């Protein structure tokens, strides 16, 4: 399975990497439990910064698409295919849309929603 990264593309590099790994899982080009290259190997092969690949791997691990087993390395998660179908961004948008619609029907103005949203996001206790 070959990964192709366009370094001048509009999509961020780590997103390109994530999307292609998810695509490989969905199309069954890589099987659950299959070993993945180390961050260093992939970064060196693609001539990218280690941090870019690490970020993609971290987000994929958060989404349970891959899993890191200590010194043994990174592997495709056993439930990766099911977890790939779940779009976290879409889920966030749906939830926020619902909430904002609720606010608007209660008469809250756009600027009040923005101020409230910013205050909540800036709250370090969250």
């Amino acid at each position, binding site marked *: 399975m070959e990964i192709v*990264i366009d370094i001048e593309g509009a999509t961020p590099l780590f997103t390109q990497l994530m999307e292609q790994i998810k695509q490989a899982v969905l199309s069954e080009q890589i099987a659950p439990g299959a*070993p993945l290259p180390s961050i260093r*190997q992939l970064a060196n092969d693609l001539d990218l910064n280690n941090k870019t690949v690490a970020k993609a791997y971290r987000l994929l691990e958060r989404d349970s698409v891959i899993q890191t087993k200590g010194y043994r*390395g990174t592997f495709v998660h056993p439930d990766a295919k099911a977890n790939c179908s779940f779009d976290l961004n879409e889920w966030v948008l749906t939830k926020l849309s619902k909430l904002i619609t609720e606010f608007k029907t209660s008469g809250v103005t756009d600027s009040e929603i923005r101020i409230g949203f910013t205050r909540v996001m800036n709250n370090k206790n969250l």
Partner: protein
Amino acid sequence: MQDNILFYLVFLSQLILISYYLPSKVLARMRHVISRYPPSEYPKLYPQDVGCYKKSHRRFQLFNHFWLLIGVLIIAADAWWSHTYGGGVGKAFPVFFGMFQFMPMLWLELSEFGQFKLMRKSNTNTKRTAELSRRRLFDHVSPALVFSVVGLFFATIVLDLYWHDFTWGGDTLVRAVTLSLVNMLYMLIVRFNLHGKKLNPHQSYEDRSRQVETVSRTLAYLSIVISLFFIYTAAGDAYDLKAYEHVIFSAYFQLIALISIGNIIWGQPLESLNFDVYKADASAN
């Protein structure tokens, strides 16, 4: 006298092998690449003008011929000296001279790094590719070979200590440290080949894998030969096996040359390499 003749013959074979035969094979390979894969069709292979490569090939040939001539002159001078006054060159001379003989090859290797740097600089392709599979050492070399290397490393140190009553004498310590450093260097080289930066930006994944295999196998064989040589020298110290030492030293150096350079020439045939990636319209790296 017979010892001297045997030494001259073996040393002459070292001169011919390292400064004539192997370099001529390397040179023929490089010239074949230029004629079979010309710059007009494979421009990415030549970040510099083709004249520069031809010039460096001539320089490489001259450099090798120079050491060959010096070696022959040394044999002639030694023959005359030992005939007139007795004595001759030191026992370690073939190894010492062999290091100079390796200089043209070292120069060639170093200039290759410069070529890869130029290739990376002139690479305008915005697309980069990588294979989504992990490169592991045991996919490229057999575990048996790696365990032989490790086993021989420890066997060399234990045997050396055994023959010297388990005391770290001067030579024993030097051999143990040298062997450890050489093996550590080899491990670093293999590690760099497995996980390190892709020096040639156009190299295909299959070629990279083949390169890892050749390098790992070559270094494993070299480590085994060096361990065996150190066992011989340790035994030589313990049992006073000094006869034919010159000959053994030279044969050892020839074996090292055959394994290291020979594996590149015969272990990676040009036909097995993917040259399509160097074509002008090749979009993949």
